[in-house]
């Protein structure tokens, strides 16, 4: 058994499922939104006159949170694969894993924000702080909304039967989740790694992160 959710069961003028078309249109608009935030951050790179900039990043910590988010994407696609094969139990298991990994990622981000503020970097410190907290803050908000959406799907699924309509519900939240993941792939690569490459303190995180 395999549920194909690309083509709508009801005839549409496009021949495509309208809900799926809508989520892709939304993701297209969100590309512009995050693209603007990332471009603004890059534009002001190296123009902060006071305070910390990329030297404050801890790449080992951010690499761990990136790994968690990538694994959550894998769990998400395994949840979709489960329901597309008519297995609700498998879908619930992987949806829960995805939501837990998403929560861990948000926890990492809160920890990072807290440490940055302790080190003296806030949104009002300099251009770097303003653009960094706005960009990663909006991304964190997207992840948090995704976690709530995933749990709502998890609990709603106890009233479901395996079918095309419910498979589409999981596919739509999955598309949103993978999008949040690829936005982070770009932020981690372009902002963290490329941004911090060349910073003098890049080998180890600040000592204060470990209570020193």
């Amino acid at each position, binding site marked *: 058994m*395999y549920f*194909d959710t*690309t*083509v709508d069961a009801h*005839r*549409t*003028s*496009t*021949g*495509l499922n309208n809900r*799926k*078309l809508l989520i*892709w*249109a939304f*993701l*297209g*608009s969100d*590309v*512009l939104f995050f*693209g*603007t935030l*990332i*471009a603004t951050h*890059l*534009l002001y790179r190296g123009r902060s006159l006071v305070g910390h900039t990329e030297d404050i990043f801890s*790449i*080992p910590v951010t*690499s761990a949170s*990136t*790994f968690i988010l*990538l*694994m959550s*994407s*894998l769990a*998400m*696609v*395994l949840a979709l*694969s489960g329901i*597309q094969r008519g297995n609700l139990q498998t879908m619930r298991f992987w949806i829960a894993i995805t939501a837990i990994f998403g929560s861990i990622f948000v926890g990492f981000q809160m920890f990072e924000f807290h440490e940055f503020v302790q080190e003296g970097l806030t949104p009002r410190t300099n251009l770097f702080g303003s653009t960094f907290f706005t960009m990663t803050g909006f991304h964190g908000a997207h992840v948090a909304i995704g976690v709530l959406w995933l749990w709502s799907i998890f609990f709603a699924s106890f009233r479901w039967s395996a079918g095309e309509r419910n498979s589409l519900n999981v596919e739509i939240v*999955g*598309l949103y989740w*993978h*999008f949040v*993941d*690829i936005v982070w*792939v*770009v932020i*981690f*690569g*372009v902002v963290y*790694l*490329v941004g*911090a*490459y*060349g910073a003098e303190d*890049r*080998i180890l995180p600040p000592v204060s992160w470990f209570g020193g």
Partner: protein
Amino acid sequence: MATEHVAAHKEHPGPRQYVIIGVILVVITAIEVGLFYIQATPALIVWLLLASSLAKFLLVAGFFMHLRFDDRRFAILFFVPLLIMVALAVALMAMFFSLTR
């Protein structure tokens, strides 16, 4: 009048393929972090980091979001804004840096 289209659609990969893609993503991330600590020509490292980010982006969009397998119009909805954004960002940065040099 509604015209019926037959959406081009291939069957999605199975769990085994998804796990393989997941492992590839982790390996690329590990390589990225390794590159970060290498003392080499900065321009080379930066381009390698950008290329690895692009590879991860395409793997997730192509396989996990099924853009390789679903109707092409979904890919157009996603990649056209992306191209516009990249072009806009590059143009803006070029203009900004030339004006503030």
